């Protein structure tokens, strides 16, 4: 009982400190070294400045002096700006093709914030069947009109400056709209990969290759040129890829093939997905086949969207996609060492399987550690010099149960971060 009382008191005092009005002490001197470190730690975790006379500084400085830097970091993550600013700004560039901080709030970003706040396993970001939504007096919240078919809901949350640290609510079960008033369960939910934000950015037109490229860019921290492999199998490369660019087969073998072996191998995972027309995000398992306008999806009788097999005369002997199976061609030694695949990572069917392969890899954990390091430490991690540290941090992240909040806290007090 006494324990519960103390916990309540500590939590309440921290809450009060975070939200308290700060009255400057006109007679105080400059901050001590410990106080300066506490202030820096707070500002890095919340992404906002803190007045010199905030009582939080003393609390955090005391913890740091007692050798409990992690405790100090935990105080800072209680601030709403940790979610409203830091986590949000980390997620925003991952959500769009432009990779800019100045991107709108979307279901992708809300999902990222929610998973962090609710201390969920971060692998859910690529495999879970959920989404996050908010509420408010001036927030349009119709599931079809404002969440599935437009970004109105999230635009309004941003416009009204809703406190995302408390406003967002987790909803189990992703849905897709099949008309202006009806929804059905998402047949292949995969966390933020099947969010309107991510699909809208990468499944819009094109050939769904971008979905693979950007999943690896954002969640593996690996640009396509880094994992290209000209030695891998080209069996999955589509018919739209010229094997004789400018009449030169060597150019294909030494250049084009490298990216397409790995990218086209995974591309099948998105064979049934498209983003078009009024309905936006569509899956051929639940949407009526048509020209892609309105709520129809442009797919063949097998359910493979037309764009996956388009431009089929460029190289007619190329791979014809017939289902949503995929193969992992990034398994030769260099890529195997880079990604650290685990479990059944050789092949799969659909986006959820794809997300499972990606999120179970050791590279996913290392990438999250790298992103958090660069977000809170305000410096670029040199992977060549810090390879061992990155592997260690990835392992620590996994040991924590893939908790992003804990990752922010532990990363912010690493000597590599503070020095």
């Amino acid at each position, binding site marked *: 009982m006494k324990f519960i009382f103390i916990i309540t008191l500590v939590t309440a005092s921290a809450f009060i400190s975070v939200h308290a009005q*700060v009255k*400057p002490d006109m007679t105080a001197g400059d901050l001590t070294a410990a106080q300066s470190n506490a202030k820096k730690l707070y500002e890095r975790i919340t992404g906002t*400045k803190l007045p010199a*006379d905030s009582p939080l500084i003393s609390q955090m400085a005391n913890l740091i002096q007692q050798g409990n830097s992690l405790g100090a970091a935990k105080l800072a993550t209680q601030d709403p700006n940790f979610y409203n600013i830091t986590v*949000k700004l980390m997620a925003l560039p991952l959500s769009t093709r432009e*990779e800019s901080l100045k991107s709108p709030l979307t279901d992708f970003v809300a999902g990222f914030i929610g998973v962090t706040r609710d201390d969920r396993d971060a692998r859910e970001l690529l495999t879970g069947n959920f989404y996050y939504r908010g509420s408010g007096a001036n927030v349009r919240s119709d599931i079809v009109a404002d969440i599935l078919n437009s970004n109105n809901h999230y635009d309004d949350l941003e416009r009204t400056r809703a406190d995302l640290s408390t406003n967002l609510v987790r909803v189990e079960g992703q849905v897709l709209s099949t008309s202006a008033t009806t929804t059905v369960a998402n047949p292949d939910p995969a966390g933020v990969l099947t969010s309107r934000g991510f699909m809208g950015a990468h499944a819009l037109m094109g050939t769904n290759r971008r979905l693979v490229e950007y999943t690896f860019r954002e969640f593996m921290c690996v*640009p396509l040129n880094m994992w290209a492999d000209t030695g891998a199998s080209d069996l999955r490369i589509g018919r739209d890829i010229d094997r004789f660019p400018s009449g030169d087969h060597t150019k294909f073998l030494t250049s084009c093939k490298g990216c397409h072996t790995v990218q086209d191998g995974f591309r099948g995972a998105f064979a049934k997905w498209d983003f078009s027309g009024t309905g936006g995000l569509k899956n051929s398992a639940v949407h009526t086949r048509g020209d892609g306008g309105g709520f129809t999806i442009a797919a063949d009788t097998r359910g493979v969207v037309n764009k996956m097999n388009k431009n089929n005369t460029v190289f007619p002997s190329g791979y014809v996609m017939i289902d949503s199976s995929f193969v992992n061609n990034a398994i030769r030694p260099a890529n195997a060492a880079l990604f650290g695949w685990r479990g059944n990572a050789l092949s799969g069917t659909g986006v959820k399987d794809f997300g499972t392969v990606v999120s179970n890899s050791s590279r996913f954990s290392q990438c999250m550690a790298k992103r958090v390091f660069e977000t809170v430490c305000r410096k670029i991690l040199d992977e060549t010099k810090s390879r061992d540290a990155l592997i260690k941090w990835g392992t620590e992240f996994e040991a924590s149960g893939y908790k992003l909040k804990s990752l922010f806290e532990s990363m912010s007090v690493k000597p590599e971060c503070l020095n």
Partner: protein
Amino acid sequence: MKKYIKLMLLIIPLGGVVVMGFNNCARYGELENASTGSSSLASTSGGPSGGDSIDSQSLGIPFALLSAEQTLASMMKVTNLTTASAATLTEYTARYGSLAAGNDLNMANGPLMLGSTSLAGEVCNSLVAQESAAAAAARNFFGSINFAAGIASVDNASYALAIRGMARSFWGRNENASELAMLTAFKQEMSDALAAANRTAAASTRSLVVGTCAAMLSSLDALTY
């Protein structure tokens, strides 16, 4: 021939304007890449942040610029304001494009400083409205200022106290002697520039405090972390 010379006279300076001017409209990373001749193809360049270059972070400089969203959140936080006024949000929306799109210090440029100052002006307006409505003893920053009297009533000691409060909150440290001297000189210049009758008008004190607050809240110390 004359026509040709006239044409060249027009084209050469115009070329200079195109090359040297309007750079603030370009994405910083792309502009930098263009000047160094490296690839600016975002999807294959490999940088984790694409076009938003983060050179100051690569260099390990222990300071970072606040991005647009961080700027507003920080300004609200250090001034103890819990809700942004409609005017503040309007100004934020209008200035959003000139505020930083990342944390790289080299994004600090003229338009950013002007935008920050304008935004700080609105935040300070709210702060002064809140503080001047409260009793002097209940104020956080301007307990030493008499908002009912004119600028002539603001002596250097009471002005210095207001500066100290803002410095500790906005900058996280005490102001130094040269900063104090500079701001005190600003007060004097502002007072000198007013007609005698205006120096006793209450509005002049409010203008002085809002101006000082905006200058301090939009200085680099308040915009970096």
